């Protein structure tokens, strides 16, 4: 299984969330973070003037999924998070060994349907 960690603009959360749910990926965990990207001391270009802000508020979305769904999920997130400007965010993918449902202790190593 894979963990997808997407760091996106705050106002994109609801679109991503909806898109994922519509395609059957309902499970996710999200929280507010502050971040800095490639440009140290990111410069946002607003209205023609440059505005300096070091750390910007972002939303992080963690989704754990089956390996086979990785491409689909990445595509959905990118499609709904992109504006094409600096600050769109980053996605990190890593490996997850086990997923366990607390309610009944079911493990996804045996039954991938619980994710």
């Amino acid at each position: 299984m894979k963990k997808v960690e997407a760091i996106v603009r705050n106002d994109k959360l609801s679109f991503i969330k909806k898109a994922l749910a519509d395609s059957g990926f309902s499970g996710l965990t999200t929280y507010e973070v502050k971040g800095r990207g490639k440009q140290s001391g990111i410069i946002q270009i607003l209205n023609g003037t440059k505005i300096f802000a070091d750390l910007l508020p972002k939303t992080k979305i963690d989704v754990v999924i089956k390996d086979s769904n990785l491409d689909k999920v990445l595509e959905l997130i990118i499609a709904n998070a992109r504006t094409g400007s600096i600050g769109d965010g980053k996605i990190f993918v890593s490996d997850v060994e086990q997923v366990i449902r607390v309610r009944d202790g079911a493990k996804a190593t045996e039954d991938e349907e619980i994710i």
Partner: protein
Amino acid sequence: MATQEDYFGATQQAFLVGWAPVAIFIMATAGFGLLYAGMVRKKNVSHTIIMINVGWTLAFFAYFIIGFPLAYYSTHPILGWPEWIPTIANPLPPILSESGAYGIAGSPSGLGDMALWFKMSMFMITALAIVPGATAERDQLWGWVIAAAVIAIIIYPLIEHWVWGGGWLSTIGYIDYAGSSVVHLTGGMLGLTAAFIIGPRIGKFVGKDKTPRTFFGHSIPWAVLGAWLLVFGWFGFNIGSSTATDPETINMELAWVSITTAMCMAGGLFGAALTSRGHVLTSMIGLLSGAVAICSGAHIMHPIWAFVVGIISGVLTTFTVGFLEHKLKIDDALAVFPVHGACGIWGVLATGIFGAKAIGAHPIYGFELEEWGYRFVVQLVGVVAIGVTIAILGLILFYLLNKAKLLRVSKDEELFGLDISIHKTYAYPEEMMDKNE
């Protein structure tokens, strides 16, 4: 030697100047500022507060210099050039009448109606504070500074002159004790026109059928505190609107006004709570709806009817919110028209309905049963005249500002939030900023 009446007048002035405008001061600015701040998203909190503060800058000064004289120092029924305008050489407003006017006893000092000057500016600032709620989360600062100055100089004084300054509505017996129409309908209607011209926030109406979507505010406690500060100020408003100049009247009026005001607020809270599973924000909004509705007839309505008028106000607000969002597709962000516009109209009409002595209205201020029809028609004419006038002036004002690109921020600024993009700050800077190295 000072007469008894002088003593009385001086004390009343101490009270009405010392207490009423100060309570409203807090109300108009802190109350609206914090109520609205709680209702917007975190990224727009600072901006929302500063938009309310605008009343306390140029607009305040401008009303003093021009707006106030326009409202009170001309005898033309519509609007005329004032007989007095303050200068360094001649700074003090002449006394309006021997017995004083508009709640302030005639000043035995001969120094003129400075107190009235002050109190009335607070009412104006309140009307101003209402407006930016409608355009919240997408409005420019300097466009609103200009709009506020225009409103303070001419738009608000026009209506004020009609109703309180001896204009045509006061001549035909129109009743608006503490501003259901002068303050609230004016503010609410200006808000509605501004919201219409500026257009909805990005993402407010979704899909082809434009389903409205709720943007949840960032903090209910702030909204609740703001609403309570407004309630506090409302007593400044309503009690401070007393025109009593002798002991009997003051007794009759102040107690009566206090109780009807409280009753109508309680009714509004109760009505709104009933229809919202006790939702606290809706309930507080209901309380304010009741407060708006009672302004017009606070001195006249029986307390029990005030409670009933309040319940209706609470329900009316909810209904109007739905109508604006689902039918008209206007994004009045913080429900400014439903609260101040709709309930302002309702309050003016309710005064025409419940003001008859036969059904328990004030034994002195109430009107006779036979006047019922006439009174209701006058109230209706007045409220329509004010509503339509303001709608037209508002549409012109905001249309011009929009053309001049002074009304709405850019798409990027809106998405990043107005705090960081316009004011280079966040509302909770420690959590969100760290640019020191």
